[in-house]
């Protein structure tokens, strides 16, 4: 057992660093808060479950955008490309006689990841405005494709006639949204575990390094381009999962799933919560969506005025969002 001893002494030597890493991995009691809240909401607010399911799926979408934006520092306007791909994949499957939800979800994730990989190969070669433009072009390209292929996607009217089967053949998607809510919650929880593990891993740390100082990461020999492509693909997969979730639970997919507005609003949701903080999505998305639900009854168009004003105000006055404010207050 000499090797074991060696490993042990090795551990001893780098105690401080490894401890720090281990602490990062350890669950903090506060991390249970979003899940407790979600469960309490399930019990106390049964009439809001459909909205709740939407919020949970959108949290997943924002979380996937945060991986690219907050951790890898890739500013994108085209994250809806993957969200929409996942939604249309799951939707088209369900509308054409394969309504099994779990496999539909996986198919959505895989298709989105494939699109992410293929577009990442092209897009990630550039930086700045050109990259931004290319992400937007990818989303617009898919939007145009979905618009034109109306025999498959329903075009402008949206995809109709989705038949989603019960989960495991047991849990039917009911009108009150019980199944949808729990389904979204479980998927989100699993994805969150994966994302959490990812950002705390050495891979996640190297992404932060790339965001903070690309030149230095190049200098120490990190495969920057490959890492960015990998995270772009993974993030696309999660975004596709989120899209498929919304498609399956609302039984509808429209062109808006690929629109620029959605890319813009997911950015603002992240910014409200705080970018690159893993929990920004959990704060920003519910705040945004509940406020939208309250205010948009007045007039949906004017909602955009206030949200635009909020975006400007957050950038000018409150960088780092809610979590940033809390950090500043505690510091």
């Amino acid at each position, binding site marked *: 057992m000499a090797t074991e001893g060696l490993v042990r002494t090795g551990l001893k030597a780098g105690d401080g660093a490894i401890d720090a890493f281990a602490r990062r991995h350890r669950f903090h009691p506060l991390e249970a808060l979003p899940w407790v809240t979600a469960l309490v909401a399930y019990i106390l607010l049964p009439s809001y479950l459909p909205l709740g399911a939407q919020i949970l799926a959108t949290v997943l979408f924002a979380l996937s955008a945060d991986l690219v*934006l907050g951790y890898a520092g890739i*500013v994108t*306007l085209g994250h809806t490309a993957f969200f929409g791909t996942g939604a249309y994949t799951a939707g088209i499957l369900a509308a054409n006689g394969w309504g099994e939800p779990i496999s539909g979800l996986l198919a959505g994730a895989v298709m989105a990841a494939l699109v992410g990989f293929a577009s990442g190969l*092209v897009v990630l*070669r*550039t930086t*700045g*405005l*050109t990259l*931004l*433009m*290319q992400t*937007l*072009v*990818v989303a*617009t*390209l898919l939007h*145009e*494709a979905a*618009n*034109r292929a109306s025999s498959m996607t329903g075009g402008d009217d949206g995809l109709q006639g989705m038949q989603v089967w019960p989960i495991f053949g047991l849990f039917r998607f009911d009108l009150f949204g019980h199944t949808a809510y729990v389904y979204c919650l479980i998927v989100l929880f699993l994805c969150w575990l994966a994302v959490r593990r990812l950002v705390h891993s050495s891979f996640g740390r190297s992404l932060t390094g790339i965001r903070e100082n690309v030149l230095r990461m190049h200098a120490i020999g990190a495969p920057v381009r490959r890492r960015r492509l990998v995270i772009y693909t993974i993030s696309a997969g999660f975004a596709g999962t989120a899209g498929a979730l919304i498609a399956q639970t609302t039984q509808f997919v429209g062109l808006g799933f690929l629109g*620029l*507005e959605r890319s*813009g609003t997911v*950015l*603002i949701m992240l*910014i409200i919560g705080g*970018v690159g903080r893993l929990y920004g999505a959990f704060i920003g998305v519910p705040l945004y969506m509940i406020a939208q639900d309250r205010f948009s009854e007045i007039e949906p*168009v*004017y*909602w*955009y*005025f*206030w*949200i*635009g*004003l*909020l*975006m*400007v105000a*957050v*950038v*000018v006055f409150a*960088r780092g969002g809610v979590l940033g404010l809390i950090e500043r207050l505690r510091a």
Partner: protein
Amino acid sequence: MSVDEAISAAVSIAFHGLAFAMVLYLISVGLSVTMGLMGFVNLAHGVFAMLGGYIVTSLMSRAGVPFVPALTAAAVATAIGSVVVERLLYRRLYGGDELDQVLMTMGLIFMSVAAVTYFWGPNPQPIRPPSWLSGEVDLGVRSFPAFRSFLILCGAALVTALWLGLERARVGIRIRAAVDNLRMAQSVGINTPGLFTLTFALGSGLAGLGGGLGADLLAISPSYALDNLVYFLIVVAVGGLGSIRGPFLAAMLLGITDTGFKYLLPELGAFFIYALTMVLLLWRPRGLFGRA
């Protein structure tokens, strides 16, 4: 298709493509210069073009102002308006985080969508060409719509004036110096903040003019800045950031191929243009005239 028909189709594609290209260039050139000068990702640039369009259409239809004065008013008003926004908001983010710039300008777009809907309603604003520009111009070989011909002539005159000005005038030389090397320009005593404001105003004024001139090509509706954003960004990125002539070539390419594809393969829509853009940038990631 006979030879005559093919020639006639090619001529109309070239004509309408050219008109579209002029509009795209007038609107986007300011974006390219502000990108090159300040490194500012201004997604809200299209808002100024949209405002120009609204000013022209409402001055003409509601106040009965003739076309040319209305265009001038649109250019001046958007230029002045842009200076206010630049001083109040943009200035804070120069040299800052790209994400912040994207967010703020995206916020401005959202605000413009709602504000314009509030004042003008959700429907597109039609533009009625003045009587001296309705009808056709006969060039002997064939006749062309007068309004579009005017657009092309106007665009060509503005582009020539712009290029001469940047090439010869003192201000133009300063702008080019600052684009090439900001620090050096500051060291030799060029007032760069003032230059930024001036360039921003000029670019926005041109955008306002382009929006008004091109009101029948890019319909003036509340979601203008959002719908056409991708076109403006393509022109700037394919042309090469900070370049003045690059965007012109890019606008030509985009305007003519887009018109051509929509004419010959309408069922594919704008699909090809986007694919072409991706291929072009795969070949030259910095754009046609981009500097390494």
